[in-house]
């Protein structure tokens, strides 16, 4: 179980508040220099896990190691971590400069060195002229950057960020996502980033841990999460996914034979699957093709009717009804051709087709 490359090693950690289990037996190994995200719906325990790494909450069970050291008895102020708080927690009685310099008092630096360091930090967050400002006179984005500089100036081994972009508008959020990535690339310290925005997690992270109800469902790179989710919960949380209940029929070489509702008999390339009855076949909307005629070639196909369609400019979304499947099937198609006309009116009979590699088979 010991992970040789784990910089932050979270071992069987649980946290209970009275009868509420906020974090439930989490094992995680976060590597040095990684941009690691904790992703999950509201209330799934992300903040609690982050606060245990920072030292504000003690695990009810389990241990957290950072850089090989057990953190259990290390108080928050002695941990090699620094945090960017969700509401930024900028000290209202101090100027921007004093906020950033707050954590350096202990180092007893000469005045000139301290000033130089703070100036450099102000420059990094592009707030050079703002040092003397009252911190109450800052915009949301500026506060966020001050919180970041204040934490980073301590040169922590790990930077913890609790939904740092949640309070910003969409445009600013995208800019800050980029800046955060750049800063992380430059200084190369480990970032643990909490978010409930899956798009944010996918675009920024090296790896993502998907959490639900206090447990970690899957830890993987963004691409792996999207292409090969390991459970129905993860698959439906990340992007859109169509699910088809299925029963396993047997194995044919490298392929698994299934009978899926709405799809009929299919063969999916999943080696090592146990033939034990229930399974779910999952296909992403953009991996389904729509056509009026039955498609030719190396593809599987099923027939249905268009329920409705939405034009989105670069692509269109369709909902298709398949016999034997209750939920409508989502299909996304690039609008490759320039066309002023929709030839797929509601009620049109169509064919859905997909390659075998488009299918993911999940436990039922």
């Amino acid at each position, binding site marked *: 179980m*010991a992970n040789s490359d784990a910089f932050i090693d979270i071992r069987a950690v649980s946290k209970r508040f009275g009868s509420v289990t906020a974090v439930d037996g989490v094992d995680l190994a976060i590597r040095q220099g990684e941009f690691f995200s904790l992703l999950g719906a509201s209330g799934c325990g992300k903040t609690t896990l982050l606060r245990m790494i920072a030292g504000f909450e003690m695990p009810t069970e389990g241990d957290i190691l950072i850089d090989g050291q057990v953190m*259990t008895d290390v108080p928050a102020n002695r941990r090699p971590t620094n945090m960017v708080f969700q509401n930024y927690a900028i000290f209202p009685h101090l100027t921007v400069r004093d906020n950033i310099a707050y954590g350096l008092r202990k180092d007893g630096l000469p005045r000139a060195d301290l000033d130089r360091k703070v100036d450099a930090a102000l420059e990094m967050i592009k707030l050079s002229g703002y040092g003397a400002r009252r911190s109450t006179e800052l915009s949301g984005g500026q506060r966020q950057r001050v919180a970041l500089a204040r934490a980073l100036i301590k040169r922590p081994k790990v930077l913890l960020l609790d939904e740092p972009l949640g309070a910003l508008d969409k445009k600013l959020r995208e800019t800050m996502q980029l800046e955060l990535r750049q800063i992380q690339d430059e200084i190369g310290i480990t970032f643990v980033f909490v978010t409930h925005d899956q798009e944010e997690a996918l675009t920024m992270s090296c790896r993502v841990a998907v959490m639900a109800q206090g447990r970690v469902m899957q830890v993987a790179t963004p691409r792996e999460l999207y292409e090969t989710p390991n459970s129905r919960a993860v698959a439906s949380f990340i992007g859109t996914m169509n699910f088809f209940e299925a029963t396993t029929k047997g194995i044919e070489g490298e392929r698994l034979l299934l009978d899926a509702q709405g799809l009929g008999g299919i063969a999916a390339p999943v080696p090592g699957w146990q033939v034990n009855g229930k399974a779910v076949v999952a296909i992403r909307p953009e991996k389904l093709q729509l056509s009026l005629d039955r498609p030719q070639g190396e593809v599987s196909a099923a027939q249905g009717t268009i329920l409705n369609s939405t034009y989105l400019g670069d692509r269109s979304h369709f909902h298709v009804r398949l016999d034997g499947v209750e939920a409508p099937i989502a299909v996304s198609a690039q609008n490759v051709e320039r066309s002023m006309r929709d030839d797929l009116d509601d009620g049109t009979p169509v064919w859905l087709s997909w390659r075998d590699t488009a299918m993911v088979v999940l436990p039922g």
Partner: protein
Amino acid sequence: MTDHANTVSPAAGSFGRLRLAVTRSEALRGLTLMSPTLFVVVAAMAVPLMLMVAYSFWSQSYVTLDTSFTLKNYTDVVTRDIYHILFLRSVTISGIVTLVTVLLAYPMAYFVAFDVKKNKLLWLILLTLPFWTSYLLRVFSWKVILGYNGVINSGLMSMGVIAEPLQFLLYNPFSVIVTLAHAWAAFAILPIYVSLEKIDRTLLEAATDLGDGPVRRFFRITLPLSMPGVIAASLLIFIPTVGDYVTPSLVGGTGGVMIANIIQAQFSRANNWPLGSALAISTMLAVTAIACLSIWLAKRGTAAIR
């Protein structure tokens, strides 16, 4: 996997473990922080009050205290008419004072909370400034104002409005009520102001939007939401004024003597501490009961308005 559970060094021993337990447990830290204050309150209030209860079951003849259990003090309190009269008078006067003070203060607090836009702080300071001056002197100045040769009488006489001094101004329940209503004004204004200020203004807009006029809106939204302030103000005035003996002594005359004067007399001139204790305890219990009952009624009342 290394054995990392054993991180408290053995040298730290049980003290280290104890410290760890204290720093780790929210509950213990909270209790530790609360304990000095709790200690003072227990030592300076709870224990003395229990002693007072004990005294009330003892008896005294001249200078010797007899510590054998007796109910005599309480039978005295219950059976002697003088105590009933004084108690009823105290409660009535304090009740009227509370009512008058709160009624007078409510529009004032309302004005500052809703009508004053710019100089709220200045108004609050102006309203509380008299409260920062000596209570004794505030009561005393009423005696000077209402007295037989006092400010009002001499003023009216020198203006020729009256020929003889008015007798009814001082040394009666009326003068006690006026004086107390003045002396305790700040205790009414501040809690009511705070609860009015807290009301979310969009609630009032919502009520108007749903068709309430200003009067209905006041009774259905503003008043119920400011009720906590009114209740706090009433308690803060009613309870201490029942126990006040300064005001009755200075401006009450014989008709304005209240229960506190009698209690005080038992501890000084009459030197019967057990009886004084029994009177004090019964007064406290009765006042608490009345206070609880009125809070309950006030809550029922506001619930009925809706």
